[in-house]
């Protein structure tokens, strides 16, 4: 299985996989199609073949992690990410991408140099909506929908924090990885999906320049 670095030199429409094990994968699919790419649901290894990027949706991160272990998806996704595949994680997806989750030993991809606190804002009765300043998007605040949301407790030097809420980082980027603690897929605002797709164009140059994709390998939990 190999990541096709040359895909964007052809005229083919990029294909973004959406991990469809559990959670809000259909909403991400709809947002991606609106943003102009082809979306493909990914449940098995073979469905990772030929995708240009992967979205890991909101859902329950313990459920998603266990199913990634059972269906042998952790290592292939790590390898594809190391080869330059884009990954966008929202909420549970942010948790899955983290190097470490506080007070938990659930299976993780461990690709991004962030330490994450799950359900950081509290239980469901504390779930909230709030407008968020995201300078990278410019213009209007982004409609933040936080549902039993995590936050980023600490981040390594390679991580660029894109947004904070009450002082806690809730959106970040590291090389070819994008994460949000909130749910852009539940809004009609496509700017974060567009930002992700812009990384598709921009990041390739970095790879061709020979920069190594950052691939944190936590002690393999699978």
């Amino acid at each position: 299985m190999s990541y096709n670095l040359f895909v964007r030199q052809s005229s083919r429409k990029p294909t973004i996989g959406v991990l469809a094990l559990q959670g809000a994968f259909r909403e991400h699919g709809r947002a991606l199609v609106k943003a102009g790419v082809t979306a493909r649901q990914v449940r098995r290894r073979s469905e990772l073949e030929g995708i240009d990027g992967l979205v890991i949706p909101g859902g329950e991160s313990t459920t998603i992690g266990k199913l990634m272990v059972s269906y042998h998806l952790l290592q292939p996704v790590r390898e594809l990410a190391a080869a330059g595949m884009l990954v966008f994680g929202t909420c549970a997806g942010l948790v899955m991408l983290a190097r470490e989750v506080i007070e938990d030993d659930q299976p993780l991809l461990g690709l991004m140099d962030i330490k994450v606190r799950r359900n950081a804002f509290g239980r469901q009765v504390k779930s909230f909506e709030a407008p968020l300043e995201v300078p990278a998007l410019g213009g209007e605040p982004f409609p933040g929908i936080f549902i039993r949301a995590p936050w980023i407790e600490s981040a390594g030097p390679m991580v660029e924090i894109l947004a904070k809420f009450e002082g806690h980082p809730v959106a970040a980027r590291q090389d070819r990885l994008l994460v949000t603690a909130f749910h852009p897929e539940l809004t009609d605002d496509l700017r974060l999906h567009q930002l992700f797709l812009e990384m598709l164009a921009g990041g390739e140059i970095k790879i061709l320049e020979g920069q190594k994709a950052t691939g944190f390998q936590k002690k393999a939990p699978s």
Partner: protein
Amino acid sequence: MKIGTMTVKTGLAEMLKGGVIMDVTNAEQAKIAEEAGACAVMALERVPSDIRAAGGVARMADPEKIREIQETVSIPVMAKARIGHFVEAQILEALEVDYIDESEVLTPADESNHINKWNFKVPFVCGAINLGEALRRISEGAAMIRTKGEAGTGNVVEAVRHMRTITSEIRQLAGMDGDELFKAAKELRAPIELVQWVAQNGKLPVVNFSAGGLATPADAALMMQLGAEGVFVGSGIFKSADPAARGKAIVEATTHFNDQQILAKVSTGLKEAMAGLDIKEIGEENLIQYRGW
């Protein structure tokens, strides 16, 4: 910053989609459910088949039990309140459960009125056997629906009936013109605005899970193929011979509901399923699906 909005209430249901919500009666079972890959657990005193066997009045679980389960797992914890018992709901909100199931499995506290769910910050899921009932619950503020099935039987026939009824009624609405929708709303005993929304969008305005009588991975996949967005499994897991293995198999069948090879694999070697009940033997007066108005 706004809390308790319909967006965050329905949003949690969106995050549960494609998952299995398992009934648990103590911390140990909750841990097994989480390990099996449940996307949430439902905390209750007794599973529906035991409630059915015991008879008497079934009520909200003891808060101590709910706390114990909340402290044990990191996934959402739901709990049941009796139909119309808004004080049980207030107590469950104080305990910060993540979802309240206003459930026909417990003995109803009000035979005319359901809980006014708009009064709460915590979201509610309610049962329905047809589209009219689903829309009435949504008009009262429910943020998620589950088809009722017949809980505690291990028999999927009623779950199938209710899911097919709702999808067929939605299809009928979608084929009507605007003038006919008023009459449809009258017949469904549901608000016209919701009826118009369903006709236009061809789906319920909130997430719809299946519940009541699911006992095997095949049952879960059947309900998913019939259009459920996720499943509740009550007695089916912890009344079986090997709850951990069966729970995991049902989770995998719910994710891979369209993959015959995987369904065959996860259905293999699961030991004994729960004993089932024939609906005809229960008797009409003992069916709990007709609780709710």
